[in-house]
């Protein structure tokens, strides 16, 4: 099909390509988000993180695929578009079913390492297929649209935006295991709209496709196969033998919350000793244990919670405290608050599913207990209340970090800015309490301590050591912090409380060496006093803190809004130390998150290079064509820059909007919509002869620079607005940047297509691979140095792209 023949096509025929592309794009993006949701339930969250890369990998490979078979696709374009659209629709449910049968596990045992890695590779390969097929529909649509390429590219972006907006809505009503089928069905109209022969022929293909999927689904009903090493796997085993049952489930875009009942549940973290807990239910979020809901009705029945470490904090509070529980996922901390006759208890939780469960199944929600559905950070920053005790429940947990299981998660409460906001909500003499599981060597608690120290300094405290106390037993360590220095009375209360509860003091002002490391002894520095926790606290309080943090085996730098990865503790030198110590077992102790990101970057880079070079080796006309280097450099640069900048803004928008799912939906959809508008404008510009990119990129870099500098402030100011207002502010901030970012791709596609159309699918592939690389690269930069650096890197890439734009192949003047 030539450019002229496209222009000669009737309006419906021209629109059908764009419509098919839009529908498939919507389905592909919806499928991508749904796959993340499914993997969050079935496995650990960093495997869900890989889905972005897998999706983009499909886009990259589709470029190679279309390049290699370009001749065939040129001859059978309409039929191929139809077949690919049908295959995409069928592949979404079928590949998900197939992958569900593959025994992939997150626990890598040395003996099984290669077998497990091979299985994961096969698993990802199967899940890449729908993306490869969907991306091929889009790529082929672009290849066949020539003069209308910017408009079709715009349809791709607009369709993706639709999928992005629709996905969270669908997740409210459809269980995760059925989501791939929903998106397959959504892709089906693309078959009916494809520019192929008659409606009857297209209908027959769609019907055939539907029958195949239907028969398969009848034989193999979709279900989520949980990793056997996950808590959900344990629950499934208990359920099979009749020892446990799920009594309620709430589905939503944010999580799948289940409430499980069993007589063998006894989980009550921070319980130091003494009394067994009453019967309780387990709150399970995305397959992970999240909290216990005590099956009691009256406060006296909750006496057991007085034996938790956290209860010691109440000894430092006055009578009738105002209590704020941030991120509560069970009922134990609410009961603990009620045991102290509080004036009020505000319970803040961002997940509506958890709130629903607590309202429905916990009798603790009464009179002065108020449940608030809000992100903890957002609540403390924009509420006016003053509290005598703020408990950071969402930060409490056992050794999550030891295997890096939450390392890629961004937490805006556990940052210096988040903790500062909490300190500002304290009444005079009020305190913050939280805790972590003990680890050897310590990491979580030290990072938390460093964050508290930095936050105290930000509110003008010169001697943070007078405002902090730490204590522990053999399994948990608790930290208390106050905006005011501890009074003599409070210190006296601490001493009494530690002694009565048989707790081991780690630090408080005036602690004596004789009190350290007993009754629960932990390892400490050779020849030193006390355990590593005490040693670290002394260092972090001193002027040597920075040097100490740099020298510690794990990354314990305080997290910030720009680097909001509290649960990441990985350092490269950790790998060497663990290998020397543990031999083959080093992988069981390494902080997997950062290693996962680095591994993804390495794997994607290798696959990208191979798949980019392959068409050059296989296709002589491509190999001998001009402008390959500039084309590759340009499309790689804009692919990297777009995704890195988008992810940078996403982190900022999460802070502004509050809810991470809504923030992702609004940000990604906003980017896609405004960029697609730019594609349509680009089409008009091109018709009028405007082909320059320099001015656009300069404007883009200026806008990006201003936004990166001001978005933190904007988030603080606009955060108090109601949700629609925050959406509006977010979209206003995204609009100019995303609009400008929408030009580089269509302008270059149009230029290359006119000069050397054979390069189009290859360029599409290069752009896809660069985007694959961008997702982990942005995260890696964010984890190591902060998202400001990631944004700056994206700006540099755009400037490089502008410089290369002039060197792209172009039509010779007649």
């Amino acid at each position, binding site marked *: 099909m030539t450019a002229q023949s496209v222009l000669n096509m009737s309006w419906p025929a021209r629109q059908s390509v764009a419509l098919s592309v839009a529908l498939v794009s919507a389905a592909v993006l919806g499928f991508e988000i749904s796959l993340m949701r499914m993997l969050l339930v079935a496995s650990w969250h960093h495997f869900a993180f890989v889905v972005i890369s897998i999706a983009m990998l499909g886009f990259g490979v589709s470029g190679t695929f279309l390049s290699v078979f370009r001749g065939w696709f040129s001859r059978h374009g309409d039929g191929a578009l139809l077949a690919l659209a049908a295959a995409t629709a069928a592949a979404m449910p079928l590949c998900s079913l197939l992958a569900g049968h593959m025994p992939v596990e997150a626990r890598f045992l040395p003996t099984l390492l290669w077998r497990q890695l091979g299985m994961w590779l096969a698993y990802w390969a199967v899940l890449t297929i729908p993306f490869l097929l969907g991306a091929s529909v889009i790529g082929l649509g672009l290849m066949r649209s020539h003069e209308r390429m910017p408009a079709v590219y715009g349809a791709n972006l607009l369709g993706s935006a639709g999928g992005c907006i629709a996905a969270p809505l669908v997740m409210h009503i459809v269980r995760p295991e059925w989501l791939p089928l929903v998106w397959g069905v959504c892709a089906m109209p693309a078959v009916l709209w494809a520019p192929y022969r008659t409606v009857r022929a297209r209908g027959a293909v769609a019907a055939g496709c539907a029958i195949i999927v239907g028969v398969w689904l009848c034989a193999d009903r979709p279900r989520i196969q949980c990793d056997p090493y996950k808590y959900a796997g344990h629950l499934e*085993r208990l359920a099979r033998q009749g020892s446990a049952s799920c009594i309620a489930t709430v589905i939503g875009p944010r999580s799948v919350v289940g409430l499980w009942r069993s007589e063998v549940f006894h989980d009550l973290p921070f319980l130091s000793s003494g009394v067994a807990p009453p019967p309780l239910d387990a709150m399970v979020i995305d397959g992970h244990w999240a909290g216990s809901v005590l099956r009691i009705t009256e406060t006296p029945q909750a006496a057991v919670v007085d034996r938790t470490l956290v209860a010691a904090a109440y000894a430092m509070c006055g009578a009738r405290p105002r209590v704020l529980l941030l991120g509560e996922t069970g009922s134990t901390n609410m009961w603990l608050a009620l045991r102290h006759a509080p004036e009020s208890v505000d319970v803040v939780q961002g997940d509506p599913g958890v709130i629903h469960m607590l309202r429905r199944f916990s009798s603790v929600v009464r009179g002065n207990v108020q449940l608030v559905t809000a992100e903890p950070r957002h609540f403390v920053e924009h509420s006016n209340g003053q509290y005598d005790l703020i408990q950071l429940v969402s930060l409490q947990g056992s050794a999550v970090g030891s295997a890096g299981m939450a390392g890629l998660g961004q937490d805006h409460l556990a940052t210096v800015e988040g903790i500062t906001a909490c300190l500002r909500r304290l009444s005079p003499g009020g305190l913050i309490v939280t805790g972590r599981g003990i680890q050897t060597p310590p990491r979580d608690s030290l990072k938390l301590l460093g964050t508290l120290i930095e936050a105290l300094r930000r509110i003008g405290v010169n001697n943070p050591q007078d405002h902090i106390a730490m204590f522990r037993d053999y399994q948990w360590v608790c930290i208390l912090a106050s905006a005011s220095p501890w009074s003599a009375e409070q210190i006296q209360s601490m001493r009494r409380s530690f002694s009565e509860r048989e707790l081991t003091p780690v630090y408080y002002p005036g602690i004596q060496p004789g009190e350290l490391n007993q009754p629960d*002894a932990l390892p400490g520095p050779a020849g030193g006093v006390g355990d590593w926790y005490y040693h670290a606290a002394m260092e972090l309080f001193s002027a040597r803190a920075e040097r100490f943090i740099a020298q510690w085996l794990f990354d314990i730098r305080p997290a910030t809004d720009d680097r909001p990865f509290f649960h990441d503790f990985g350092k490269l030198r950790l790998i060497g130390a663990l290998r020397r110590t543990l031999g083959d*077992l080093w992988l069981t102790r390494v902080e997997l998150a950062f290693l996962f990101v680095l591994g993804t970057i390495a794997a994607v880079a290798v696959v990208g290079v191979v798949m980019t070079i392959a068409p050059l080796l296989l296709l002589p006309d491509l190999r001998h064509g001009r402008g390959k280097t500039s084309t590759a450099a340009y499309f790689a640069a804009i692919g990297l820059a777009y995704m890195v900048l988008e992810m940078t803004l996403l982190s900022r928008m999460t802070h502004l909007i509050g809810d991470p799912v809504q923030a992702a939906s609004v940000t990604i959809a906003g980017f896609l919509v405004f960029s697609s508008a730019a594609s349509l404008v680009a089409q008009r510009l091109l018709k009028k002869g405007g082909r320059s990119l320099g001015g656009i990129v300069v404007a883009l870099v200026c806008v990006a620079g201003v936004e990166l500098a001001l978005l933190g402030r904007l988030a603080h100011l606009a955060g108090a607005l109601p949700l629609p207002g925050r959406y509006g502010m977010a979209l206003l901030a995204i609009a100019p940047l995303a609009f400008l970012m929408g030009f580089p791709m269509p302008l270059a596609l149009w230029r290359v297509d006119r000069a050397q159309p054979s390069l189009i699918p290859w360029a599409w592939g290069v752009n896809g691979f660069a985007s694959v690389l961008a997702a982990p690269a942005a995260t890696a930069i964010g984890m190591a140095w902060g998202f400001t650096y990631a944004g700056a890197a994206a700006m540099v890439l755009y400037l490089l792209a502008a410089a290369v734009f002039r060197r792209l192949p172009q039509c010779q003047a007649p």
Partner: protein
Amino acid sequence: MVETQIAAPVDGRDPVKDVAVLRAMNSVPRHAFVPADMQRAAYGDTPLPIGHGQTISQPYIVALMTEALELKGGEKVLEIGTGSGYQAAVLAQLTPHVCTIEIVEALGKTAQKALQDEGYADVKCRVGDGYHGWKEEGPFDGIIVTCAAGHLPPPLWEQLKPGGRIVVPVGGPFDVQRLVVITKTPEGKRRSTTITDVRFVPMTGEISRP
């Protein structure tokens, strides 16, 4: 396996020195407690999958836990979390009074059969909730707890004799990072110490060699 992996100071970790424990480790055929397809790897010092989301612990950790109980022979020992049955078999080499409880029915039955087949019929096995211990068989001189409830189950504390020891492996989702030995003083007070399987010196990133 025992001489080179458990009794030797491999890398930075403390070797297991208790001769009786080393003898017990030498006597128990680990391959009999792992699935057939894992038997070739049975004598490596690594954990192995046994199905049901469980693993048989690394032999070094099993030896370290057993050593931490400080058994002299004749004591009554309770294990919470039978798993493959291997740990119970090692304990049975040291004392004739071993009780073990497993919550996953399928695992408990497989372990019981493996123990019987290997001549450890004296080991008392039960499928049930280990949180409550085994009151009828108590009190115990030593208890090994491999299940996690976020706290020490009070029934186990009650079933521990004064002077007795509880060994609790604590770690991340996938590995034992340290062993906590909780001792009940004659006055009934709790004292705990932590044994790490490796000695980290986290300040430098280097590992001290004992």
